[in-house]
């Protein structure tokens, strides 16, 4: 995999984004300098309105900054055309949303295949086979023909993660991926993220729950559009262990 650890995957220089609401200019993020290396697992935290979603959208090439520069995998994105932006979203980034954002009335397999349909480089020869492989990786090989409405929230989110993986991206971005899930399902999702990170995939996610942030390796805290804290986690939690604890508690409750 090309995203070997150590290399700068994300580098922002003086990155700012200002929205205009009517005549008023509302700054969402202000001159952010952030470096994330390959193989990292970063949790971005902050209260609502702190600018964390805006930062995610910029990192995910879904939006363009008002000023500043953003290098993704060494590419200066400020000089790209709309189509090149689309290609970057397609090939370098896997996005996981809070609301899953799966196509309705479309099977899990076809949802996962979707990014491959838009890959003009045709890097993957057999889309269906590749989609099946990533669905297996997220543990959904027995649900591939189910439509989103037939899946639980946790399963839908795993389909979305499989979709983010299918194009072999350098980076997975997750915007509050467990916001709609109960705590057990959330821990399961984090277990999956940790497993993927162990396999070498860089993960950046937004969460506002400190407990979940501890599953990451590094925390970046935002307030009013600026980074106020950026530190490595010393007492990192392991989701797999937490899952065992939850299961034990459940057994204890039943007994």
């Amino acid at each position: 995999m090309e995203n070997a650890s150590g290399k700068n995957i994300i580098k922002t220089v003086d990155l700012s984004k200002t929205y205009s609401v009517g005549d008023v200019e509302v700054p969402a993020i202000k001159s952010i300098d952030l470096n994330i290396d390959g193989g990292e697992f970063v949790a971005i935290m902050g209260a609502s309105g702190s600018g964390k979603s805006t930062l995610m959208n910029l990192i995910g090439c879904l939006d363009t900054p008002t000023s500043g520069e953003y290098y993704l995998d060494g590419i200066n994105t400020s000089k790209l055309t709309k189509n090149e932006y689309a290609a970057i979203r397609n090939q370098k980034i896997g996005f996981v949303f809070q609301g899953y954002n799966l196509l309705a009335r479309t099977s899990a397999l076809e949802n996962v295949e979707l990014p491959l349909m838009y890959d003009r480089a045709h890097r993957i020869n057999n889309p269906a086979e590749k989609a099946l492989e990533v669905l297996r990786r997220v543990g959904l090989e027995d649900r591939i023909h189910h439509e989103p409405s037939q899946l639980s929230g946790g399963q839908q989110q795993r389909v979305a993660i499989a979709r983010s993986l299918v194009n072999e991206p350098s980076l997975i971005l997750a915007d509050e991926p467990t916001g709609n899930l109960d705590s057990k399902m959330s821990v399961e999702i984090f277990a999956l993220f940790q497993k993927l990170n162990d396999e070498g995939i860089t993960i950046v996610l937004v969460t506002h729950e400190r407990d979940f942030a501890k599953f990451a390796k590094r925390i970046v805290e935002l307030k009013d559009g600026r980074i106020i804290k950026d530190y490595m986690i010393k007492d990192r939690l392991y989701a797999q262990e937490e899952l065992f604890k939850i299961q034990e508690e459940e057994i204890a409750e039943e007994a």
Partner: protein
Amino acid sequence: MEAKNLLKVALKSILKSRMRSLLTALGIIIGVAAVIVMVAIGNGAQKKVEDQIASLGSNLIVIFPGSINSGGVRMGAGSINRFTMKDVEKIREEATLLKGVTPIVRTGGQVIGGSGNWNTRIEGVSTNYLEISNWSLSSGEFFTEKDMISRAKVAVLGKTVADQLFPNDDPIGQQIRIRNVPFRVIGVLAPKGQNVMGADNDDIIIAPATTVLDRLLGGRYISFIMASASSLSQIDQAQAQLVEIMRKAHNLNPGEDNDFTVRNQAEITQAATETSQVLTILLASVAGVSLIVGGIGIMNIMLVSVTERTREIGIRLSVGARTSDILIQFLTESIALSIAGGLIGVLLAFGITFILNEYTSQAAYINPQIVFIAVSFAGIIGIFFGFYPARKAANLNPIDALRYE
């Protein structure tokens, strides 16, 4: 996205909401069916007119005497009567593109016979008259070459004359007197009805041209000559050849005006069919308007569809779809809808035409060309009216699209 996937996605989204797709396409279905049926009815009417004209004769060429230039004063057609049986003989011998030629010696008069008398038109013709004028007998027989040579006093009656003189009897074998010359009735013509001008075709007596010339008129000039070209496509060449033969027969010098006038059936047909063509175009344009209205229906639904599927568009954009991918996806959908509607419309048109032909007196003929045009037009409408909604979808901002509820 590859064409195969594009089509798959388009068909899937059309089939996802079948009822709505059907209602959307309904405008196109009705429009296409209307265009095809209207043109079919127009063609039917045109065919009727053509059939009526064909009943005048088959690939007819008519040569009238006259229209010469005498001392700078142009005389009207028929001003100088110069056709004789010799002209007819000449044409019969030299023309190669004709099925047949007959003189028409036209006169009229009081006819007495059976239970009464009747004033009618009398035409002296040759033996192949029936073939040339596309006519047939309902009973009896036509005169022969022998009758021509012997100037036999035989007559064939038109239906009207037969009914007037012999309302209760069989006229065959009966005696009639035309201008006091006794004739024997040997046949009765099949009824032909009114001609294009509304005159009664059946109010006529046919006799050998020689008989009419010698025994009724005592002259040698014939009224005009009717000829029949071998085929419709050769009618113009045949006419040119006739002109040559006639000029030679009349010893006209090069540069001298013809002393005869030639008209062919194609010219008459053209004049008559032009009217019905105008009618067809009118009908088709009215139907075409309904096609355009159908297109607006498609645009309407596609716009609703874009709004409804904003999230889907956002998802596609977020996983790397280009603006053009979304544009093409929605265009494909509207084109697929309108072409599918077009094809259903064609089936409907065939059904309606079948019913018209089977159960009503209205004849309708479907022109394969118009089927092709109508379906292509439906496709173009799909592109035209699908473009605006498709562009609207493609220009959505991915973040806004994803946030849309």
